[in-house]
């Protein structure tokens, strides 16, 4: 490790040296290559991005845009390491969890002048990405969570779409098929932020809106987690810890995922449908995951990058991107526009899950210093994932662990 760190330190040193030498050649002529980091290596996504970049090149022959897909699990870590090493991307996708860190840090260039028809943006979608009234990143994806159901495994959905009934259906399907019931995608007993799609049904929140008070030891969270614990260990409706199952490979009956995952469904695969999150004791609700698009000040061609962002996010391209990433534009959040871009989804699915979801949804929890808080929550939640766990005690332990971090 000493050697690893030494290597990194050297890279950082050389990086900063070259950064000094490189200087600000933003306005200069000559070919420019812009690098945009993403967390999607999905073939269909990459094809769409490349086609937008190719179109841009017809009017800007000097500008080539490269899309650099980084692994999702370490996405933010990789980007910050690249920034530290003097190799900052020109444009970066930003996960909602680290949005407050990026937005508040001053690492991003304001985008107010780089977005066409900014008045069209839904305020709920941009709230997380603003600092002092300035838009620091463009929420290119405002993607609600829904439940994908394998209709070959679950023939009829319960008439009352509540959590009780959903878990009963998942449990029955798992018992009957020997496969898994409901998979909360990308949770895997590590990324607890994806459980927001469950506990919001009880009205629970990880911390208060001002970010200062821990919500894990409050009654709604205790009720939600008690329900979830029973669903996992008694009803066996969710895969147990350490068991992996992929809905899109036909290994589970249902999955909670964002609608952008619809691109993983194969046309000749199993039968499926998409429904909103089940109603919880607190009634109907929806949860949104967001992705932002920011221009890094430290990139070598910041002004050219902002120029490309203007093109990438204009109304025409936003409509194309809507195929995978629900747009933040009011004018495009209607079933017709979305149906054109999402041939796989039916108009009522789009209305129920996407349009209503974005209008009423709450964004997954975020906070400054989120990496450290998330890690502390993950570690403190680990004792919960055992059959004999004392749910209230574990949750109060989570608050003990994160309260000092929330106050930072």
């Amino acid at each position, binding site marked *: *490790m000493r050697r690893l*760190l030494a290597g990194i330190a*050297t890279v950082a040193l050389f990086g900063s040296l070259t950064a000094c030498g490189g200087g600000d050649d933003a306005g200069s002529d000559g070919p420019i290559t812009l690098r945009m980091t993403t967390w999607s290596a999905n073939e269909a996504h990459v094809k769409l991005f490349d086609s937008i970049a190719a179109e841009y090149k017809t009017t800007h022959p000097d500008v080539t845009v490269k899309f650099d897909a980084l692994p999702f699990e370490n996405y933010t870590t990789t980007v910050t390491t690249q920034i530290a090493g003097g190799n900052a991307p020109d444009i970066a996708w930003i996960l909602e969890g680290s949005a407050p860190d990026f937005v508040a840090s001053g*690492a991003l260039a304001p985008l107010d002048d780089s977005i066409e028809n900014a008045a069209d943006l839904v305020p709920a979608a941009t709230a997380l990405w603003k600092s002092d009234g300035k838009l620091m990143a463009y929420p290119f994806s405002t993607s609600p969570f829904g439940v994908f159901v394998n209709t070959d495994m679950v023939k009829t959905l319960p008439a009352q779409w509540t959590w009780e009934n959903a878990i009963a259906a998942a449990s029955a399907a798992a018992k009957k098929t020997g496969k898994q019931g409901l998979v909360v995608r990308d949770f895997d007993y590590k990324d607890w932020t994806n459980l927001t799609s469950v506990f919001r049904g009880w009205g629970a929140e990880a911390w208060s809106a001002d970010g200062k008070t821990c919500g894990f030891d409050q009654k709604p969270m205790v009720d939600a987690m008690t329900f979830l614990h029973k669903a996992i260990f008694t009803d066996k409706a969710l895969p*147990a810890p350490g068991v*992996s199952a992929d809905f899109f490979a036909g290994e589970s009956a249902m999955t909670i995922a964002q609608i952008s995952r619809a691109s993983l469904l194969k046309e000749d695969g199993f039968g499926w449908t998409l429904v909103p999150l089940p109603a919880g004791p607190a009634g109907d609700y929806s949860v949104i995951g967001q992705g932002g698009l920011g221009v890094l000040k430290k990139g070598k061609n910041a002004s050219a990058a902002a120029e490309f962002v203007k093109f990438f996010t204009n109304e025409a391209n936003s409509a194309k991107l809507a195929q995978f990433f629900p747009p933040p534009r009011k004018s495009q959040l209607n079933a017709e526009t979305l149906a054109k871009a999402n041939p796989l989804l039916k108009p009522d699915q789009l209305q129920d899950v996407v349009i209503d979801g974005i209008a009423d949804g709450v964004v997954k929890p975020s906070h400054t210093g989120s990496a450290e808080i998330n890690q502390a929550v993950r570690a403190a939640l*680990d*004792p919960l994932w055992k059959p004999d766990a004392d749910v209230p005690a574990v949750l109060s332990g989570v608050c003990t662990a994160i309260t000092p971090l929330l106050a930072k």
Partner: protein
Amino acid sequence: MTVRTPLTRRRFWTTRRRDQLTGYVFITPALLGSLAFVFLPLALVVWYSLHEWNVLADTFNFVGADNYRKLADDPNVPAVLRATAFFSIGLVVFNLALALLLAVLLNQKLRGTTFFRVLFFSPVVVSLLAWTIVWGFLLQDNGGLNGILNAIGIDGPNWLRSGGTAMISVVIVQVFKNVGLNMVLFLAALQGVPVSLQEAARVDGASPWRVFRSITLPMISPTILLTSIITVVGSLQVFAQISVLTQGGPGTSTTVLVYYLYQQAFQFHAFGYGSTLSILLFLIVLALTVLQWQMRKRWVFHEN
């Protein structure tokens, strides 16, 4: 008043000086490499540890000994050091014991020993990540290992998710990865033990165990020292296995020092504090190596 004749003036380029110059020229590339890639970064890490460096906010402020005070007060550090010690001791004991046992067994003149030597050595040349990822699948709750246990009627634990078994699993994955290397070193040492000494002992009526303890073991003690230093230093640097198998969990039970350092620097963006932790690691490795080197006089055969 003496006048030096040109004949008595010594030439600057004496043979000795020329030899010296040649020597320096030869070591220059290696020296430059060490300077640029070892000593300079080491100095930089010390420098960074005196700063608060947030990459995102692009701040680099001198904070003096603040990071060291933070280290002393950090409530996670005792648990991290315990996990590190547990991993290192587990690894060194298991690894050396198994390596020595295998080496002694495979040192017998029997058919098939070559096959087994290759078998136990082959993990050493396998990519660490590939090895770890495959073990990750085997150790899952519904993975291969529990499948085998199930077949013989044992309900296996959830290896990587229970506090008690996660660390043991990581240790065992690492032992099987590298035991072959120590085994080969031990084998070479065993073959260097003079047969005449062992025979003389046997003629004097020593039991096989006594021969091993009083003849073989002292003769191979330099190799035991070498392998123990390599294994201790390596064990303190474990990272990929933790990152792939447990991410430091469950809880913080497998968060060893290097993984904690990685979290602080690369995940929480606290590069200054991360550098401070790496200095702690450096001092621990240094202290253990010096200690082992000093102890050699007590038990290594050729040293007394």
